[in-house]
């Protein structure tokens, strides 16, 4: 399809990027934490992909290339607006993250995501992760990229990907497990005196 676009069928670009609309927006939002800015960054990333399409090397995956473009776009916006990129993470440092220690866990079904407060809890916890953990978590867990692809997109080692993902998971568990447990199992207060 890319060859066809470069040979003159430019409208095909619309179809080329359709499967990646959500990923690119989600990546931008996870970095920028602002919906309007994330949308603008996502649009800019797709425009850059169009303008630079001839530079795309077919041995790379188009989706990984797009993710790299949106990461660069979001990071440059962060640099312009503040120093959010400075939350330094030392992957070699001992930084044990202790999980929330519960004695039981009853599965919270996906249907609970119909409730906006549950979605908000999850979104807030994700966006509160340090940037370096957030990037890895989004790529591995939400975008389902391999360790290799994640390392390549972020320019870090595979060992760092694994370490950051592990810490991100435990941090999320620590914050979310108690919150979800009480939010999902909270008794309905309405008419509780009957």
């Amino acid at each position, binding site marked *: 399809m890319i060859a066809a676009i470069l040979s003159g069928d430019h409208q095909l670009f*619309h179809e080329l990027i359709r499967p990646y609309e959500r990923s690119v927006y989600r990546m931008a939002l996870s970095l920028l934490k602002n919906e309007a800015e994330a949308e603008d960054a996502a*649009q800019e990333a797709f*425009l850059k992909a169009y303008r630079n399409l*001839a530079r795309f090397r077919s041995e790379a995956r188009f989706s990984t290339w797009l993710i790299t*473009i949106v990461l660069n776009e979001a990071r440059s916006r962060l640099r312009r607006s503040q120093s959010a990129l400075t939350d330094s993470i030392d992957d070699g440092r001992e930084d044990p993250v202790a999980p929330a*220690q519960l004695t039981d*866990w009853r599965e919270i079904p996906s249907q609970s995501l119909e409730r906006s407060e549950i979605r908000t809890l999850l979104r807030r916890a994700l966006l509160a992760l340090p940037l370096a953990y957030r990037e890895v978590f989004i790529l591995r867990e*939400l975008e389902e990229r391999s360790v290799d692809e994640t390392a390549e997109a972020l320019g870090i080692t595979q060992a760092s990907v694994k370490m950051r993902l*592990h810490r991100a998971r435990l941090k*999320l568990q620590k914050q979310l497990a108690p919150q979800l447990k009480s939010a999902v199992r909270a008794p309905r207060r309405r008419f509780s005196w009957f």
Partner: protein
Amino acid sequence: MVLNCRHVWDQISGYLDNTLDAAMRADVENHLAHCEICSAVLDSTRNILILTADDRVFELPLGYSERLHARLAEAILKGPPPEVKGSS
């Protein structure tokens, strides 16, 4: 090897990703079999990963796709992608 809880927490990701070697996996499972806390840590982590990966957590803004394609259409009308030049 007998693992304590902290050792097991260190292995949670490897356990979930199925990247532990057989001996370590067996040690973790032995611990999980009698430790309520670590079992709950494992189950809750697994559950939270499923929930956070759900598309409903980060919904697209209404009209996002239409606005994106309208902006792309403008760019496409302006001209084809440059052959090699161009900034990234």
